[in-house]
């Protein structure tokens, strides 16, 4: 195994992690701040990807598509909050699970209604196409580097917003006692709509960015939703820092597991079998890690 390969895999892990972070950031914001379990977060991700694909193919510009994805996801989030979510804050988690589960069905079938059942086309913008050379002789896809950069910028921005601004304080205050913050004269309702739209926009951004790497299709949000939940739980719910570190951890573990487990097993098993068993173990790996972390730190790594 060459060092170039190792470096590339580490970058891959980092990039996967950062992508998960974009998804997890919105989720942890909504989840941690509003105490709301939003299973439909994956739908917002899908909406972002669809909006980007549709606008990009209509205008020929990925960047316009990106703006559209932010706008569409934020709008969908705001509408969702006003019509449904708002009534669920003081309910227990169960009602939230059911309602947002229902929203998944509505969004998924709704998009199929509008866009049909075939995957849409969305490609990387010309500016970011191709690969760059890495020290050590390897190569790395430029677009993935760009995703890493965007993710880190978002992490920083969010962290400052939540921990340093008055808006952030009020949002967190609402998390601990909504009634009280309203009794202090703060329009928590509108504030929550804004936060929700912000979280949604981040999911939409993730969807659009990742959509260019994958197939843009109905249901694309579901697998990443579960991973995003894993991330925020490992990191500690409500913590932006936790989400970032959790995401990178999951990204690295998943990538390295997929890469190294079959190789390691190949030392003792025939190649085909090592591939299967290793693959099976690799897919269980992040869940095993999550269970271990929670067993020792029941509130995640960076409990708020």
């Amino acid at each position, binding site marked *: 195994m060459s060092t170039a390969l190792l470096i590339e895999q580490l970058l891959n892990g980092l990039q996967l992690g950062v992508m998960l972070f974009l998804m997890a950031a919105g989720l942890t914001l909504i989840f941690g701040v509003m105490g709301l379990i939003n299973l439909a977060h994956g739908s917002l991700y899908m909406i972002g990807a669809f909006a980007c694909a549709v606008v990009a193919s209509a205008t020929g510009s990925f960047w316009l598509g990106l703006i559209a994805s932010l706008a569409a996801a934020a709008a969908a989030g705001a509408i969702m909050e006003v019509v449904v979510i708002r009534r669920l804050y003081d309910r227990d988690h169960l009602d939230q699970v059911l309602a947002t589960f229902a929203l998944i069905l509505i969004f998924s079938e709704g998009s199929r209604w509008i866009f049909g059942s075939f995957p849409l086309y969305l490609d990387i913008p010309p500016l970011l196409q191709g690969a760059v050379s890495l020290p050590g002789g390897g190569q790395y896809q430029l677009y993935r580097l760009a995703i890493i950069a965007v993710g880190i910028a978002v992490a920083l921005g969010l962290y400052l917003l939540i921990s340093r601004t008055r808006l952030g304080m009020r949002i*967190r*205050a609402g998390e601990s006692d909504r009634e009280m913050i*309203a*009794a*202090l*004269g703060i*329009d928590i*309702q509108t504030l929550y709509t804004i936060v929700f739209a912000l979280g949604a926009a981040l999911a939409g951004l993730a969807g659009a960015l990742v959509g260019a790497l994958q197939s843009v299709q109905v249901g694309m949000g579901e697998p990443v939703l579960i991973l995003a939940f894993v991330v925020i739980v490992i990191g500690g719910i409500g913590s932006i820092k936790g989400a970032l570190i959790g995401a990178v951890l999951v990204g690295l573990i998943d990538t390295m597991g997929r890469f190294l487990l079959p190789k390691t097993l190949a030392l003792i098993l025939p190649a085909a079998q090592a591939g299967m068993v290793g693959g099976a173990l690799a897919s269980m790996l992040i869940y095993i890690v999550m269970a271990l972390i929670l067993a020792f730190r029941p509130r995640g790594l960076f409990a708020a």
Partner: protein
Amino acid sequence: MTLLSIKGLETFYGASQALFGVDLDVEEGEVVALMGRNGMGKTTTINSIFGLVRARSGAISFASKQVTSLRPHKIARLGLGLVPEGRRCFSNLTVLENLLAAARGNEWTVQKVGELFPRLNERRDQFANTLSGGEQQMLAIGRALMTNPSLLVLDEATEGLAPVIRQDIWAAIRKLKAAGQSILVVDKTLAELLPVADRCFVLEKGTTVFAGTPEQLTPALQDRYLGV
């Protein structure tokens, strides 16, 4: 000028009625005491003013504005500051953040609150859920003051405080009163409450049964309504 006026207030929790006709008013610059035994409806009255529970019937007006149909934050913005029963500090915020989150207007500042309660200054960066009971109580008062209310509403604001601190808080209340702050206060300790109050109201089973000056609340009446 009449700041707050409540007439014939009736409030329900689900199907069970808690208030059966409360009448109460606060003039500007006045300290009014709201009294009554446990469970008679004091907190419910206050929550109704703030829109935290909805009045079923009756009228509540503040600064000559009808508030019964407004949303809680709109009501508070008319100039009402609440120190709720049970403190309800924002547990995941630090002392400083609790104060900043509430800040509105510019007369009261973090610094001024710190002067009123030096203890809070010491614990500025500690999370509210780890404060002692008394510290939380101070924080709740400070937080309400940060909204620069024209009427400060204190629900059991001295509960669980050490005697020296109670004295401090009563002193603070007197200071606020002297500065012209209007205050509606619920408290169990008559010995401390009556001297600062300009007028008192007594609730029994959700209705106003007494309204008058502290002097008019004779020991006999105190025994009858409050069991003293």
